[in-house]
């Protein structure tokens, strides 16, 4: 293993194991300008739902792995709005090519946040590749997203979020998280979710 890989793996190992709901709440508390948030399938969007309803949130009920591509589409359509994608490690591993696409398209207003607990938590905690040797920050950087970093702790996570709000991206933030299950689940109402999101983005008029 190269020195560089050793250093990167050490950065991942040294990152504090945090809590997804706590970090999601911290993220949402920083959003003051109707930023869009795409919550990936499963626990990523359940905790986004639990962190409080926002008209600019889109909750994915299927299409595993597509939070970042959906967020890219939103970011291209509305370049003045900041857009966040929230994904789990299992979801992100399904669509690694999208990181290369995002690096090349280089939307300045897009941030991908990955919650990494090294497991497919919702299906029985089977291990993902990130429980082994894979490092998602190294992968994102290798795909060409220069602004890729592990959040070392909660304060560092907030610092990275503020940087993503203030400076040009694209950004990739990974956080190690524990196996706590969300307290709430998103209602399975895709058309309602989509309509609320489109109204929240000003694409459809308010009712």
């Amino acid at each position, binding site marked *: 293993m190269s020195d560089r890989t050793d250093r990167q793996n050490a950065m991942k190992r040294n990152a504090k194991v945090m809590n997804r709901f706590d970090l999601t709440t911290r993220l949402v508390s920083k959003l003051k300008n109707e930023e869009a948030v795409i919550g990936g399938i499963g626990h990523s969007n359940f905790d986004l739902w639990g962190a409080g309803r926002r008209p600019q949130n889109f909750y*994915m*009920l299927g299409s*595993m792995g597509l939070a970042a*591509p959906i967020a890219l*589409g939103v970011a291209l359509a509305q370049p003045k709005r900041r857009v966040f994608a929230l994904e789990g490690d299992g979801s992100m591993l399904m669509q690694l090519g999208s990181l290369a696409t995002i690096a090349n*398209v280089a939307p300045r207003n897009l941030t991908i946040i990955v919650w990494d607990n090294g497991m497919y938590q919702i299906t029985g905690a089977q291990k993902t590749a990130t429980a082994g040797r894979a490092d998602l920050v190294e992968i994102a950087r290798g795909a060409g997203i220069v602004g890729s970093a592990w959040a070392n702790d909660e304060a560092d996570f907030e610092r990275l979020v503020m940087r993503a709000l203030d400076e040009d991206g694209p950004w990739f933030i990974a956080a190690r998280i524990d196996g706590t299950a969300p307290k709430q689940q998103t209602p399975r109402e*895709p058309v309602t979710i989509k309509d609320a999101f489109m109204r929240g983005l000003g694409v459809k008029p308010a009712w």
Partner: protein
Amino acid sequence: MPSADAPSPIKADATWHEAVIRALKDNDVRLVVYVPDNVLRPLIDAVSADDFFTVFVAAREEEAVGIVCGAAMAGLRGIVLMQTSGFATLANVLASLAVAAQIPALMMISERGTLGDFQIAQAIVCRTMRPVLESLGIEHHTMTRLDEAHFVVDRTIKQAYKTQAPAALILSPLLTGQR
């Protein structure tokens, strides 16, 4: 944005890709995300050279559908270009995102594996395309004639947006003239 009810003046399109581009412009479809195919090459080249369009390649067709769905929800009309084998990877994203949430994801598929294709893999996968579209209830039209091309693309885009539903346009070798 051009009025949805005011198509550009009727004229003969010299090529199928000119007819497609005219219909995309008439309907303000500005985002083109593709996974390439030889048949699609003149269309990809033409939209890439035209400032009206934002054009880029995706690593995978499923990713491209996700991008176009996100753009559609945020007010930017887009279309995915792909070949038959790429469409065969899309059942889950179409079912669980575009159909479930009623998002007008537009797709253009160059039909490989028929009318003389020498690739057996293309021929087999081609037979899955229309049954998948039918089973998902997705509006689809096969384009075979140059004189109908603009009409089919134009009307399909309008219906997709007015009914908030995905739609697929299949480019037959009868239109595109290649294997």
